[in-house]
């Protein structure tokens, strides 16, 4: 008979292997980073432009410039582009974040050479038209109005402004009217300024064909410099708004909670410790917030906290949707947990658990070529060497003490410094 009470002995996982990308330059100096890994004959290409929300003078400009890239170009109509991409089974993903705009393409290697000319049209020769734009803004506006009935969406939108303030582009609050204000000419201008060789990085991952660099150079190595722009996109300083906000939605059966504050980003030496501390607090399934507010009290389906890093700031954020009638109790419990984090040393067994969990989680996050490329991309904008960063992270996970984490908590996560937003019904 086996003794089932006795856990199997744990072994140390493989040492983390962090591959270095091959680095090339196209004729127009666009840097290309290549991760030739994996066994599946699929290539993923990410074009990353400094064209995120940070650079927009008004809401939605970055979003629509990116979205409309595929809706008509010099040589093809939007339908022809869609047909070509679908015909070759391409996954094309366009996205805009606070700092960047990305056009990302995944394709079976055998189709790559048919698809690159289309990608070239999309990236270098979009033709923005008011007709196409209107079709999209009209339907997106309806989806936006639908979202206005979701406590979670409303909370996300408004807490963003509460954190970053009205004046900074990170904090711009999108309204339904902004959809009507979009103009093709403005998109065209934004494209000319921001989708240029000197504001572009390319990351390629997968099982790569030998001629990938020359193919990329043929299609993307000629594009010239863009219009000169002011390199400092915004002079406004990030200044958070009101400390507490409540937005009532009377029919809500759950309320959305946001509690958080501005913080440091990945360039700061304390970021890793804060990241580990956040994991303990609300960053994994066994976290303190989950244990207390879901697994002990049953107030919510899920609660989590996170450390986010942007070019001009970092953010610590707690988010959950809880039963409207227990909303106040849930908020109280969150502050109680923060207070414990600010005042008590983390027990050694809890710290050990999180260290093991995080080590496994970092290993998992490097599993496969596309994940490796994602890790690399997440640090590219800070000019940090990603191998050094992850080796440092593994070392910090290994060496950090409860004492250091308590200091980190007191320095960055004081309960009294938090901003708070409730959307829904706050109860009594």
């Amino acid at each position, binding site marked *: 008979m086996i003794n089932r009470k006795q856990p199997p002995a744990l072994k140390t996982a493989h040492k983390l292997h962090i591959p270095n990308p091959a680095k090339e330059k196209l004729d127009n100096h666009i840097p290309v980073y290549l991760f030739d890994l994996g066994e599946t004959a699929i290539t993923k290409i990410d074009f990353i432009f400094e064209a995120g929300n940070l650079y927009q003078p008004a809401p939605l400009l970055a979003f629509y410039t990116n979205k409309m890239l595929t809706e008509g170009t010099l040589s093809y109509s939007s339908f022809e582009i869609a047909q070509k991409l679908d*015909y070759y089974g391409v996954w094309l993903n366009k996205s805009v974040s606070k700092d960047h705009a990305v056009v990302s393409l995944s394709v079976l290697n055998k189709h790559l050479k048919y698809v690159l000319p289309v990608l070239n049209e999309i990236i270098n020769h979009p033709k923005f038209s008011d007709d196409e734009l209107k079709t999209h803004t009209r339907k997106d506006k309806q989806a936006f109005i639908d979202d206005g009935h979701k406590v979670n969406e409303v909370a996300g939108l408004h807490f963003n402004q509460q954190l970053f303030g009205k004046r900074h582009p990170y904090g711009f609050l999108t309204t339904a009217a902004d959809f009507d204000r979009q103009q093709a000419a403005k998109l065209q201008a934004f494209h000319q300024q921001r989708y240029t060789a000197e504001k572009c990085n390319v990351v390629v991952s997968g099982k790569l064909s030998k001629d990938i660099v020359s193919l990329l150079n043929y299609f993307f190595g000629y594009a010239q410099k863009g219009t000169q722009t002011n390199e400092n996109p915004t002079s406004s300083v990030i200044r958070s708004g009101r400390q507490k906000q409540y937005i009532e939605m009377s029919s809500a059966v759950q309320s959305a909670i946001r509690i958080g504050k501005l913080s440091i980003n990945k360039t700061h030496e304390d970021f890793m410790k804060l990241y580990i501390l956040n994991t303990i607090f609300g960053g994994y399934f066994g976290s303190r917030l989950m244990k207390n507010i879901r697994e002990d009290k049953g107030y919510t389906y899920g609660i989590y906290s996170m450390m986010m890093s942007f070019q001009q700031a970092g953010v610590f954020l707690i988010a959950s949707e809880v039963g409207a009638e227990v909303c106040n109790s849930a908020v109280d419990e969150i502050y109680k947990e923060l207070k414990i984090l600010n005042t008590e040393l983390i027990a050694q067994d809890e710290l050990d658990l999180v260290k093991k969990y995080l080590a496994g989680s970092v290993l998992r996050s490097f599993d496969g070529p596309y994940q490796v490329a994602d890790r690399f991309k997440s640090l590219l904008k800070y000019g940090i060497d990603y191998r050094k960063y992850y080796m440092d992270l593994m070392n910090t996970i290994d060496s950090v003490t409860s004492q250091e984490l308590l200091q980190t908590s007191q320095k960055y996560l004081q309960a009294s410094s938090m901003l708070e937003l409730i959307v829904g019904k706050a109860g009594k």
Partner: protein
Amino acid sequence: MIFLQGIPLSAWVRIECVGMIKYSRYILDNGLKVIVHQDKSTPMVAVNILYDVGARDEHPDKTGFAHLFEHLMFGGSKNIPSYDYPLQLAGGENNAFTNNDFTNYYLSIPVQNIETAFWLESDRMLDLAFSPKSLDVQRNVVIEEFKQRYLNQPYGDFWLLMRPHAYKKHPYRWSTIGKDISHIAGATMQDVKDFYEKYYNPCNAILSVVGNITGEEVLELCHKWFSPIQKGTPIKRKLPKEPVQKEKRILRVERDVPFDMICMAYHMGCRMDKDYYATDLLSDVLSAGNSSRLYNRLVKEKQLFSDLDAYITGDVDDGLFVFSGKLMQGVDMEMAEKAIQDEISHIKQHKVPEKEHKKVLNYVRSTLEFSNISILNRALRLAVSELLGDIDMVNSETQNYSKVTSSDIQQAANKVLVDKNCSVMYYMAAGKRKKNR
């Protein structure tokens, strides 16, 4: 003794083919089915356990139970007070989901610590802790999940309404979350124990493992941890077959949402039906990608919908072919329905042109290839193929799609997309009505 079934020959033949998933398949004495696919490129291993029980197996007065039970599986087992703690200590991460057909638990862990996964999974298959506190708390958690996903979202109750509209006899007439919160609130410890006793047995489960590990190594672990578990009584499922629908059904509801929505659901065959692949491709011609017919003609050109989809539910038993779309402001329901009907008539009368046919085939092929990148996805696909009774589907699906001709797609349209086979729901925006008056 271990019973080896049909591995060697077919497995070796497959070695040369690109993109194929090679696997070994075993059945333990106690009926547990085990599938192993070795992938040397990853430091992690995926361990997937599928229990052949879903919402369709529930009593009509105790719906939502299979899913509630899934939550209780994390409340500690006979010899191990916490499931998550030792798994996280071993660097693992896990989750689970329940659908109408089955309940699936999956985890990934550094391969060196795979035995921790076997220890944990076998103990909760052996016996649970049945803690009253866990039942209390998880009832609340699931009620909050019910609110978050179905009640506190515009259009969130859409499937809660649509299922009983389209199904009258088959248990697909309720959602996995259950018909009503009261069913979850009323679950007792005795219900929990009975359910566990009946369904959570080796003979009702499929274990699949994907990672850098051989079949022999997995088998040895299975022997140690799973073989001592009692087989349990095999279950013969006797579900009522949904009667053939004789006339079009119409349901009209008003809700506090900003815009109108329409949903049309047609009955189609089961997952193993010979027409499954043709019907799936039919939905792709209509709705997959930005070059699809519905998106281009009805969303972009005519601007009748803000979004519009056609898809199949892909259930194990007889499923649904669904159109669902949100109407643009100012478009009335009749116009919207007629536009969809026109597209249906067109595809029933005309063969899909060769180029369009090839396009959807390519689309399906890439989707399958892309989904195979993840070891967890591969483990799930292996387990589900085994559940469906044809493990080899994991490799033959691409071919099955390729065999579908343009006439097959047209025939599928003529068979499924028939008026009297349709249940339509008009989901009206209550607030908007008032304003218009």
